[in-house]
């Protein structure tokens, strides 16, 4: 009893007060807007028709969103975007992580690790503007490089496939380093003695990767998939500055469509319903990834 009293010497509520600012901030910037969006999703809530009021309309906004062909088309396009970019980002990220995990060249490796942060630290809108320049038909870097090999300039942003490839490339450029850093942290978790023993046992890098290192990479991969899925579902700035969702609807991802509904048409009711459907989708995907990919290292 005396021991318990001494443990509580700082006061029973003290830990709560330490946590309070973080909880308050989270409630203010995370929970409140989500609850507000939830309420809004059940109302007719058009900011340009304020005079009509904001009556409750039940599930009308959800029905509207789920029966809207554009919603499904843009969601499908977002899924395709994720399937095109994620494997490349993970693959290149793993390759970079393995290279950086090699012994030796300490200074260069440290420099490379720091430089990996640069794309991550670049603002999305700036990535989009850079992409607009890089893929410009007449003075873009990509066409200049293609020109060295005798290829005619391609009109990247002016045709649907080219524009999709361009936004995917910029996404890969920005997020491959993130995957590399996650994998690198996974590789650094492998006990040195086990890795060294394995290196003595086999000269095969593939065997080392699959039998020794891979188990330590699964948790990182799961986190990466969860974060990137959520991120792709809300990817807006870079694509908007690069193509505005065009040409046609070639690069109109779901977030761009929701932005159009929310901030061009100002139908906040439908936009909130769409956003909450995406939240449900994100949670479902996260659960799926954990079930399929997550493995505790024994």
């Amino acid at each position, binding site marked *: 009893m005396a021991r318990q009293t001494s443990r509580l010497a700082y006061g029973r509520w003290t830990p709560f007060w330490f946590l309070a600012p973080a909880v308050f901030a989270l409630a203010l910037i995370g929970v409140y807007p989500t609850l507000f969006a939830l309420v809004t999703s059940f109302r007719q809530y058009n*900011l*340009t028709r304020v005079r009509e009021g904001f009556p409750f309309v039940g599930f009308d906004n959800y029905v509207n969103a789920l029966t809207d062909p554009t919603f499904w088309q843009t969601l499908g396009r977002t899924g395709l975007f994720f399937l095109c970019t994620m494997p490349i980002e993970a693959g290149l990220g793993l390759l970079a992580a393995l290279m950086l995990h090699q012994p030796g060249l300490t200074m260069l490796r440290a420099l490379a690790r720091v430089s990996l942060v640069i794309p991550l630290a670049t603002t999305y809108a700036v990535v989009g503007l850079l992409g607009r320049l890089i893929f410009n*038909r007449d003075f873009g870097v990509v066409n200049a490089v293609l020109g060295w090999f005798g290829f005619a300039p391609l*009109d990247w942003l002016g045709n649907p496939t080219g524009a999709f490839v361009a936004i995917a490339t910029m996404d890969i450029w920005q997020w491959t380093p993130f995957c590399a850093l996650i994998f690198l942290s996974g590789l650094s978790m492998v006990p040195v003695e086990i890795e060294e023993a394995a290196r003595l046992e086999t000269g095969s890098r593939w065997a080392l990767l699959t039998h020794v290192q891979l188990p330590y990479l699964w948790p990182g991969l799961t986190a990466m998939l969860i974060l990137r899925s959520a991120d792709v579902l809300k990817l807006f700035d870079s694509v908007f500055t690069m193509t505005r969702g065009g040409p046609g*609807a070639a690069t109109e991802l779901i977030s761009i469509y929701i932005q159009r509904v929310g901030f*061009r048409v100002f139908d906040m009711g439908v936009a909130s319903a769409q956003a909450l459907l995406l939240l449900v989708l994100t949670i479902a995907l996260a659960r799926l990834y954990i079930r399929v990919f997550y493995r505790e290292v024994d």
Partner: protein
Amino acid sequence: MLSFLRNVSAAALIMATAGFAAAPAQAETWDIAKAAAPYKGTQLNVIFLDRPGYRAIEKLLPDFEKATGIKVNYEVVPYENTRQKEVLNFTGQGDYSIALVDLVWIGEFAENGWIAPIDKFASDASITDPNLNLKGFFPLLLDAFGTWGGKVYGLPFDNYSGLLFYNKCMLKSAGFDKPPGTWNELKDVYGPKLTDKAKNQYAYALQSLRGETQSADSFMRSLWPHGGSLLDKTFHSNLMSKESQFGLNFRQELMKYMPPGIVSWDHAEAVNGLAQGQVAMITEWSAFYPTLTDPKTSKIGDCLGVAPEPAGEAGRLPALGGFSLAIASQAPEKEQKAAWIFIQWATSDAIAKDYVDAGGVSGRTAIYEDPSIKAKYSFVEPMVASWQKGVPEFRPRFPAWPAISEIIAEFGSKMMLGETTVEQGSKDIGTRMEAILKKEGYYDGKKPLLQ
């Protein structure tokens, strides 16, 4: 400049606008400092764009602030974000005292009560310039940019007309000593001779990036001159009419003479295309004249020519665009009155010459009668000619336009890319547009058919 502001005019002008009863029959000296004295220290908040007209007024602002003691805080925002910021500010009872109103937002802003009609302020002689003279604006501009339902809400500030900018030297090399007078001539005569794909040179560029650029600059420009229109008299789609279909198919044919990837070209690319000698002709807003004449941003130099937009089967109906400044209803009364003084000053005859010299385009008629202005700026004559006749509803100005504009932008781009046919795309736009207009109440007599 200060003395100019204090003693603008002693000439006798008639305040001719009906409804502004307090305006004196005899023009008086407008002592702006005296009028603004009760509002000294008032801060006004307004959005400006990063365009020549705004940079021009920014240069002149210190004179206004010094004379009146009213501080104008402007926030420079990209056009695409402007409406969003203003709507959120107005619905959230924010701090904007002045609304920057694109002509296609006037219906939405007025019907929602976000902007106040000017009559309340214009009838107060203590804050109204005796030389306000609304008839001194081009009627088309005042009507299109500032008027809704017969009431004036805003005064034309940043004024554009679509013009044909062309490279005289390129035209001359191809054997032309003047620009095309008609769209057919541009396509059938000038197009083939001025296009050399091997040299990456094209006769014409029509900015068509998805967004307002596609819906306004590209799509609507293809309808009106050929006799087409978006809506018929009952507010149903008119896109399947013979004239509208002709206009949209004409745009498809014209693409042969445009650079590849034109659907990704915004204003900057089109202006740059002409400035760097890649295209021979563009139809762009008059506001881009300073960009094309500035040696830092343009190589075209003396080769630049400016003409009215070509005529179509329905005559010369050039694109019409621009912004007015209106008083925000949400602002406190003191700010509103200070805002009224600022708006009058910014759009006045008194500063029109300085404004034009600083790179702006005034909406006042008198300034363009000045021979020195005509001689100095080659865009003036074609622009004034374009403003003599035009359609205020070049783009409908009702509140439903932003939603309709999104649909046009999507299907208009798809038509140009060949992802849908002109006919099918027109049907798709029509169906979706009519659904919006039905929801708005235009088909059951709930709303007057104003556009």
